[in-house]
């Protein structure tokens, strides 16, 4: 019975019918809800781009490894077939590059494993968003209950007023009408009680939501900051390692630097 009334109430709300008393507070809440939705969209977007970044890093590592392998084969070939010393020199140079490429490839792979771990935080928070939505819908349905009861109460009271007015006109009282009135007053009292319970429940949920959202915001900020730090530290560390690997090859082939135009 109540479900049907709540449906009628939510429809009345939608049609701009009787305005529930909590309208003002709802505006703040609606703004908060919009912000959370916007945040969710951006987290989805960032999480997708993070996946693409991870894939690109992985591919880079793989290709670097393949390049190293191709040069290892060339080195082996030149050494096996060497007729001139220039070939052996070239083989040594290429081996330097091959070794560096294989090392760099390994570093890209390791970096990527770390990147995945850190940026996973974005994916995690997408999951956590579900519970936020759950909390929002709890509040909405609780508010709907309150609104339904309020409007029911209001219509019961106006019916009671009408009955009282009608029975007072009849001298000596109207037994059936009076009985109806008594029943109605009972119903009103019960509905009052239900309304009070619902309002308390609504207030409880509202307060819960507020503290939960605050906690969610705090934790999210801390987690995201950690994510950024971890991501950046990883990038710095591995970029340095990769730079070292190539710097060694630069030093080993420095003799050619003077000959290049």
């Amino acid at each position, binding site marked *: 019975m109540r479900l049907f009334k709540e449906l009628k109430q939510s429809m009345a709300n939608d049609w701009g019918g009787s305005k529930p008393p909590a309208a003002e507070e709802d505006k703040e809440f609606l703004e908060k809800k919009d912000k959370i939705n*916007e*945040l969710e969209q*951006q*987290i989805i*977007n*960032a999480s997708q*781009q*993070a996946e*693409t*970044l991870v894939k*690109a890093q992985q*591919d*880079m590592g793989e*290709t*670097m490894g*393949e*390049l190293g*392998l*191709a*040069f290892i*084969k*060339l080195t082996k*070939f030149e050494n096996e*077939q060497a*007729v*001139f*010393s*220039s*070939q052996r*020199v*070239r083989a040594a*140079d*290429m081996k330097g*590059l091959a070794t*560096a490429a294989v090392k*760099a490839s390994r570093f890209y792979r390791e970096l990527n494993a770390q990147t995945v771990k850190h940026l996973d935080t974005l994916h995690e928070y997408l999951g956590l968003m579900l519970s936020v939505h759950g909390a929002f819908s709890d509040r909405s349905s609780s508010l709907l209950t309150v609104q339904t009861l309020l409007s029911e109460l209001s219509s019961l009271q106006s019916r009671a007023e009408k009955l009282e007015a009608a029975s007072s006109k009849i001298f000596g009282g109207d037994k059936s009408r009076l009985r109806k009135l008594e029943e109605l007053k009972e119903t009103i009292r019960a509905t009052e009680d239900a309304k009070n319970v619902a309002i308390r429940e609504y207030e409880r949920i509202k307060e819960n939501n507020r503290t939960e959202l605050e906690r969610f915001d705090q934790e999210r*900020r*801390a987690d*995201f*900051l950690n994510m*950024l*730090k971890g991501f*950046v*530290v990883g*990038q*710095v560390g591995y*970029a340095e390692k*990769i*730079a070292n690997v*190539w*710097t060694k*090859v*630069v030093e080993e*082939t*420095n*003799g*050619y*630097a003077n*000959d*290049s135009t």
Partner: protein
Amino acid sequence: MNSTQKSLFGSTQSPRSPSSKPFLYVSVTDPVKLGNGVQAYISYRVITKTNFPEYQGPEKIVIRRYSDFVWLRDRLFEKYKGIFIPPIPEKSAVEKFRFSAEFIEMRRQALDIFVNRIASHHELQQSEDLRTFLQADEETMERLRSYEIGIFKKPSDLMQIFKDVQSKVSDVVLGKEKPVEESDPEYEKMKQYIFELENHLAEAQKQAYHLVKRHRELGQSLSDFGKAVKLLGTCEGNALGKAFSELGTKSEALSIKLQREAQRLLMNFEEPLKDYVRAVQSIRATIAERANAFRRQCELAETMKLKEINLDKLMLTRSDKVGEAEREYNELKAESEQATRTFENIVKLMNEEIVRFQEHKTLDMGITLHEFAKGQARLANDVAGAWRSLLPKLEASS
């Protein structure tokens, strides 16, 4: 660098003063797109600076197009058998239609290297065709170019197949089933080396090209990631929002560095490897020429023997055909000796060329590998530096 490298690349001490030392420098510059649609082509400015006495003057500027370079290469290939003619960039029907800035620059670079290699080769630099190429006016060049295209439709390849068929036919006529080939084990080894080298180099070039693509892809993903993170920062606001925003900005900046490195790798790493492959393919063409020269030498020697036998027979019978036969025999003998000289010259040249080739390739590769490592080190250091600059800000936020 080690002592072996030094001994290869130590500059020769010239007793002459710098001003009297002969030089020939060429630069291929200023590509300009001419014509429309499918007829479009690129013209280049070719600037020559020289003190060679055979040249018209110390400096000359001409306008040349790709097919002129092809003409030069074909002429040198025909005239200087045994020498590894420097390779020319491929004709690309697809790219030509698009004519991207990238393609134009790569082609210009390759053509510049091509001409300079010819100019610095002690024999090729004396070529009359080179002088024509560097000095003739455009009308003359066009005339020569169109004339040659009629004869050499597809330079090496088609002629090669034709010659192969020719020699196979004559082999059958002379009663041989297998084509005549040299039996020099060292030369066999060299041929085998060249064929296998091409495969290894092609693989290395392929991976180099993939590496270029990976840099582009990583660059793109950093750019997209940066944008997404900045939007997220706007949502968050406060210290976290700022941190996101700065991370996003850094990510976008690094994206640009990666795109630049991709471009650099294309020009300075993949292209030299492609050039190496082309050089090896050019050697294969020379190997084919040597095989032809060998076959011709053998054919003429065989034919000469037969003619000698016939002449002896005629002399014994005191035939009045002796005179004619003698003349024919002498002609054939001269031709045969010429063919032998040609073949032996090719062998001698190739032996010198392979030494030069290996030395030059070690030098070329050394420079290429050095530049590659430099670029990668620079990129990695830039990446480290960019991300590192964020750390104090991130520390302050938490």
